[in-house]
């Protein structure tokens, strides 16, 4: 016991704890950096967070599901509370999925939340990828993080497919059956891969326990690792940002992690969690009790994969039955749309940063983003890729489109085949022209001012529109949005605060604009040179 009596100061406790921890862990440097990280203010920077937070929801709900699900393929007779399947022979996996849905308290909403979160995870990855692509955020020095992102997409793809296959209902069994056909179509290694994956012939009794460990352990671990790398690289290389006031290539303008951004992002996480819970509770997904247990002879109409796999289903539906026979060997037609096509698409995505450097002959590092209209070739290429993917995805559900919209299924297939070849070039051309048009309009407004909507008649009888110039002198385009409406220049008066309803009294309206006549027109209203 120390004889010295210390006065206890309550206010010093947090600082003292921090001091003690830092003396032992030396975390202050890292932590200061993390807490001070600046996040730019733009909605598109929050798209990646949707993926991150739905991944967290996936981990939480998935853990709950794992407590009740058994991936065993032992045949049992169902005797749960869903009457239409009573007495049916099924695998233990399907029986426990039904048990989870009907007899575990909260099981169905957890299953549905898990599935919706999976769809949202993949959807937000895709939308986030669009953002990164169209704004040029993948450029040097961030090419590696782009590649990590592509890998994350494919990991999510296989994770989702494994999860889709686990309940062993007729739909997931059909999906697995198609997957075996794809694996078998690969030359030389296909048969060996197939038999070693399934431990013999399809379906066997091995595949579900194997997929289970892949789904709950291996891929989630890889995903977690790669997400860490993805975020660490983002912190290390810092955020990109839009050009704007004070934003340069050497700084980041925005909100610091603590306190501003941490609050926003926590709120966003809760919002995402809430949305997934709402969808899980209100919108039915994967009603596996309708599908019945998987039996080889049961194949339902409208058997589709989840949306992120559907483009491969579409490419398979569009592919003509061109088997390639070389001597005694056959390469089945399904090899091209399901193995070669995704391989080529992945390689294109991985190497796109290098391709982009060649296109724009730009080998410099960039931290400021580009507006899509300012890089028309890249934007047009992106739209071309999206339209290609859309044609494939719609073709993946072409039987449903055909049935619901009274179109012949054959017509849908041919529309898909022709569309796959002609829609992307059209998308390229249209996007390119739109980009140029937008560029031109930006330059026009900078040179002549904003259209006021005021038409003036000159003494000689001509009509002209009065333009409001943005500045007295010549304005150079700076890669930022150009105001196009008088409202953006303050013609409306100050905006009233409050998102859903006003939280302040509206300001008194500005004095009425003086009627435009050559005599008393305000000085800043200049006449645009008449165009012929």
């Amino acid at each position, binding site marked *: 016991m120390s004889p010295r009596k210390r006065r206890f100061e309550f206010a010093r406790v947090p600082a003292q704890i921090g001091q003690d921890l830092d003396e032992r862990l030396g975390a202050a440097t890292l932590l200061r950096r993390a807490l001070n990280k600046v996040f730019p203010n733009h909605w598109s920077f929050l798209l990646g967070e949707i993926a991150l937070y739905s991944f967290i929801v996936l981990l939480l709900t998935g853990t709950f599901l794992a407590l009740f699900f058994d991936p065993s393929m032992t045949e049992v007779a169902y005797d749960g509370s869903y009457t239409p399947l009573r007495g049916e022979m099924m695998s233990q996996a399907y029986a426990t999925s039904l048990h989870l849905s009907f007899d575990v308290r909260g099981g169905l909403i957890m299953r549905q939340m898990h599935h919706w979160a999976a*769809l949202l995870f993949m959807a937000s990855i895709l939308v986030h990828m669009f953002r990164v692509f169209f704004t040029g955020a993948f450029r040097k020095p961030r090419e590696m993080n782009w590649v990590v992102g592509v890998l994350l997409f494919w990991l999510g793809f296989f994770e989702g497919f494994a999860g889709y296959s686990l309940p062993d209902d007729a739909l997931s069994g059909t999906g697995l059956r198609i997957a075996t056909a794809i694996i078998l179509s690969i030359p030389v290694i296909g048969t060996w891969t197939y038999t070693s994956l399934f431990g013999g012939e399809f379906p066997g009794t091995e595949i579900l326990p194997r997929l289970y460990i892949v789904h709950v352990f291996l891929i989630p671990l890889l995903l977690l690792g790669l997400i860490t790398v993805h975020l660490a690289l983002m912190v290390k290389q810092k955020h990109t940002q839009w050009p704007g006031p004070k934003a340069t290539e050497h700084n980041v303008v925005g909100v610091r992690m603590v306190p501003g951004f941490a609050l926003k992002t926590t709120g966003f996480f809760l919002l995402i969690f809430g949305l997934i819970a709402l969808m899980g509770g209100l*919108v*039915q997904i994967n009603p596996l009790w309708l599908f*019945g247990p998987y039996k080889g002879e049961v194949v339902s109409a409208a058997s589709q994969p989840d*949306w992120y796999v559907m483009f491969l289903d579409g490419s398979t539906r569009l592919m003509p039955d061109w088997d390639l026979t070389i001597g005694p060997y056959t390469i089945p037609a399904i090899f091209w749309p399901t193995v070669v096509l995704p391989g080529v698409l992945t390689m294109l995505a991985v190497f796109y940063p290098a391709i982009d450097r060649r296109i724009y002959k730009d080998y410099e590092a960039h931290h400021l983003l580009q507006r899509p209209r300012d890089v028309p070739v890249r934007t047009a290429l992106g739209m071309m890729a999206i339209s290609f993917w859309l044609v494939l995805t719609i073709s993946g559900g072409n039987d449903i489109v055909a*049935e619901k919209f009274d179109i012949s*299924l054959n017509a849908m297939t041919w529309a898909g085949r022709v569309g796959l070849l002609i829609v992307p070039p059209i998308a390229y051309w249209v996007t390119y022209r739109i980009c140029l048009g937008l560029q031109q309009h930006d330059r026009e407004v900078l040179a002549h001012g904003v259209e006021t909507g005021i038409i003036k008649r000159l003494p000689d009888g001509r009509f002209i529109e009065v333009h409001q110039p943005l500045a007295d002198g010549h304005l150079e385009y700076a890669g930022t949005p150009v105001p196009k409406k008088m409202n953006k220049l303050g013609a409306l008066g100050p905006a009233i605060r409050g998102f859903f309803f006003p939280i302040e009294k509206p300001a008194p309206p500005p004095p009425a604009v003086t009627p435009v006549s050559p005599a008393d027109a305000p000085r800043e209203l200049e006449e645009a040179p008449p165009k012929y």
Partner: protein
Amino acid sequence: MTFGLGRMRRALRHLGSARVPAGSPRATAPRSRWRRRAGNAARMVVALLLVGGVYAAVAPGVQANVASQPSAEDIAEGKAIYDASCITCHGRNGQGVEGRGPSLIGVGSAAVEFQVATGRMPAARQDAQVERKPPRYTREQAQAIGAYIQSLGGGPELPDETDEQIVAGGDIANGGRLFRVNCSSCHAFGAGGGALSSGKFAPSLANSTPRDVWAAMLTGPQNMPVFGNNQLSPQEKRDIAAYIYTLQTDPDPGGWGIGRLGPAAEGVAIFLIGMVALVLATLWIVGKQQ
């Protein structure tokens, strides 16, 4: 069949030989070719009659649990409607008109009740498939036309059971099993319908009554195959109709069923509901930030 026949013939031959007293001259003398042939033919006829009779007694007949005999007034009323509405395409006395409508002789009352009561007949036009529409005639009128067509040349008939009786007598677990094997490949697992080739389709079963389901299986309307009573017994038809009724009336336990269309509709939902809501949320968050 051939196996059974052969066995039967051997048994008969044995009987035949037993009738002849052993040691008699007739038994040992070589029989003439003609007598032998005549004997064979006679035995063949007897065997066929036996096999046919046993088969007819054991096998589920088309005539099993048929409707009660329609009255003459029903037939007369049906003929009146037929002469007013159907005769243009199906011709006088249901003989069909070349290029317009097929002959109805022998199609039976089940087909007529299905086509008329679901509104498919009278058809608007010749197409890949005749569509379901609001029916022009009541079910009683449809049954009357059916009675008239039945009187022309017979054919498959529905049993004399109401929708409630069919549903009450069905085993939905067995019906579900049979539905998944026989029906889901075209009508889809949720009975929402599916596309067939060249504009043909398997319609949604959302509004099909148990009698309609039964009649469709029995008669194979449009592009549907016939599931005769020797393929799906009347009890199995009852099971399937009861299962489809369960599908129609069971609420979706998971919430809004988005048409039970499977993953395609779910993919649309995640973008239209999920992504749209969250992008609006990002705009809100950033909007509040400034």
